[in-house]
């Protein structure tokens, strides 16, 4: 036991002493923030689209559309011109030259039959198209009602939009979390879980590989059992990851206390979705679930990564051999949208029960919706059993692999190692 403790301490001290640990402790959160927010930022903020409204309406409908669009943040109305021969072609040419983002063609038939045309270089932005359609719909309905003699004030009142506030029920208490916040929390968690399990799993792998390639492992296993060595290693690296989280947690509290300033910087005005970007309060139970599944996932995957390290003879081989393990871990990560959208679907339940996917799937489901106690206990029990079985198999591969040199074993040889 004292020897295992020495192995744990060595793994911990050597890692925490390294520059890389502190670099990732400090830059890690920035890195996570970057990979989460930068794509969203770019998706949302291409800047306002400059368009020309080709107004062929006699009723003033085109003018109203142009005004309404100009008030929004998505579009900038460069001009409103009456149709004339050759105009469409010349504007299309302007779009081709990137001087203009698009053109909206309106005629009297727009109000009558709902026909309108938007030509642009990019018509795949759902947000742009949605906004355009919303404005046209609203104004067309207005125009039709007014034409039918309805009082414009009545129309105005009829068009007050519904502001649907979403609040997550956790247990039987309403939380302050909105659905957007739940989703973001789940999304962020899945990214953090995936990356940290993968990174620290790979740490275990390279530690095994180092001892194997330097042959120190021979001296070590002459003093303690291979399983004890592997256990010490996994626990030591695990302790480093928990320490890392602790640093991030303390740092995170500081950041949260400055949240207003942070949110202001991350989501500039044109976002139009500020509410969704408020960092949600994270309940203690969620933190507990997150840590429990992180540890479970870490032990499960570290055992596999340790086996991968033991069966490889160099970094390159190890990188190849780790791919199946990483893919396994990715299943749940790639399913995060499905999990958050419908946390009670059969697929989501299955992922949160299977030990290889539950470490990511269960925290995501937990955050996104309600998880029954039975499912929760079952998932943890299966994860525990999975860790037991996987560690047993990994330890047997490890025991043989650490002394092997030469070519990597094939599947049949691996099975023989496990059975031996």
């Amino acid at each position, binding site marked *: 036991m*004292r*020897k295992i403790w*020495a192995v744990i301490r*060595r793994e911990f*001290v*050597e890692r925490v002493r*390294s520059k890389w640990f502190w670099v990732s402790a400090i830059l890690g959160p920035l890195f996570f923030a970057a990979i989460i927010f930068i794509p969203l930022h770019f998706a949302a903020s291409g800047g306002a689209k400059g368009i020309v409204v080709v107004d062929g309406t006699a009723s003033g409908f085109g003018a109203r559309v142009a005004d309404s669009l100009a008030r929004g943040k998505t579009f900038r109305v460069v001009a409103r011109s009456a149709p004339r021969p050759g105009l469409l072609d010349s504007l299309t040419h302007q779009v081709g030259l990137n001087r203009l983002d698009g053109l909206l063609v309106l005629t009297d038939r727009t109000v009558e039959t709902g026909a309108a045309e938007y030509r642009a270089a990019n018509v795949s932005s759902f947000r742009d198209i949605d906004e355009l359609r919303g404005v046209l719909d609203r104004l067309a309905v207005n125009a039709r009602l007014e034409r039918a003699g309805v009082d414009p004030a009545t129309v105005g009142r009829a068009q007050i939009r519904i502001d649907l506030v979403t609040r997550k029920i956790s247990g039987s208490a309403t939380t302050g979390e909105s659905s957007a916040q739940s989703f973001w929390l789940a999304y962020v968690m899945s990214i953090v879980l995936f990356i940290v399990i993968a990174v620290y799993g790979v740490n275990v792998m390279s530690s095994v590989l*180092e*001892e194997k*390639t*330097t*042959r*120190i492992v*021979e*001296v*070590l*296993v*002459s*003093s*303690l*059992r291979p399983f004890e060595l592997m256990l010490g290693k996994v626990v030591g690296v695990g302790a480093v990851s928990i320490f890392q989280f602790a640093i991030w947690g303390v740092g995170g509290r500081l950041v949260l206390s400055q949240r207003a300033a942070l949110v202001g910087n991350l989501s500039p005005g044109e976002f139009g979705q500020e509410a969704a970007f408020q960092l949600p309060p994270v309940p203690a139970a969620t933190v507990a679930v997150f840590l429990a599944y992180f540890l479970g996932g870490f032990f499960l995957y570290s055992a596999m990564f340790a086996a991968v390290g033991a069966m490889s003879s160099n970094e390159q081989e190890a990188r190849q051999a780790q791919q199946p393990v990483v893919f396994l871990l990715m299943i749940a990560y790639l399913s995060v949208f499905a999990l958050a959208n419908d946390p009670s679907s059969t697929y989501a339940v299955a992922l949160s029960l299977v030990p290889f996917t539950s470490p990511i799937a269960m925290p995501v489901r937990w955050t996104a919706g309600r998880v029954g106690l039975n499912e929760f206990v079952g998932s943890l029990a299966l994860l525990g059993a999975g860790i037991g079985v996987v560690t047993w198999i990994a330890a047997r591969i490890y025991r043989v692999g650490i*002394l092997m040199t030469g070519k990597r074993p094939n599947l049949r*040889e691996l099975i*023989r190692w496990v059975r031996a």
Partner: protein
Amino acid sequence: MTSPSRSPSPTPILILDRVSKRFAGHTAVDELSLSVPPGVLYGLLGPNGAGKTTTIRMIMDILEPDGGAVRVFGEPGGGRAHSQRIGYLPEERGLYRKMRVLDVLVFLAEMKGIDRRRARQRAGEWLERLGLTEWCLRRVDELSKGMQQKVQFISTMLHDPDLLVLDEPFSGLDPVNAQVMKDAVLDLHRRGKTILFSTHIMEQAEKLCEQLCIIAQGRKLVDGALSDIKRTHGGHHVVVGFDGSLGGAAHVFADKTLVSKVDNYGQYAELELASGADAQQILQRLVSSGARLSKFELQEASLHKIFIDLVGPEEVRA
């Protein structure tokens, strides 16, 4: 100097009893038995691929034998249970490259069951003894290869083991470190420690070993005290010098029951004894035949020669 214990045999430190190890396709060690008495410098000799490292790994509990039994310090099972009393230097050596020298030594001593404080103190003493004190806080990869080798010896001997198991201890060492290693081994031997080492270099074994075991292709060819082995496998050559009168020497040399081969120079002859023949009988016959002898010498074959005779030249080259 501890004398080779041929007298009432004390309990051996290490016993292998018909130990076998098979790997996919071939048998690395085949029913090997040997016994190492306490205080002895014991050589495990054999050509490359003979099964020396596999044998040592089974002794050290790194590999499990497929058959047979290992007893260390009188108890069944390999060395792991006694790791505090055993120093092990594998053939391929390495250290944690990124760790500080002192930390590596302390960690490896902890693996042997020494507590940290004592480990630090002893590591300090050893580093001083081998002139590495100022390097103790440097990282291993800043050390020269020779210095790393010294750190490896220290890690083997730091916990003052009763049994040292050294796999090809002199291979890859520079001459200075080979001397340091040899001195350390002899010093430990003087202090009554038991040392088992493997080598394929016979000259080295001949100078150091008191007892030995020669293996090839996983099988034991011979074992026992070096002097016994030389006597039984060595004393086949006799050099005879004449002082004038040859007497009936030619007749004696022609006796196939005594001499299998003769190289006769007239006043000088080299004989190879027939198997089972006794050199004393030849001496008697020569004297009684009237020959005057200036020299009659039983020549001891070198261990190298015995080794080649036993193993076969092809194996040695392998």
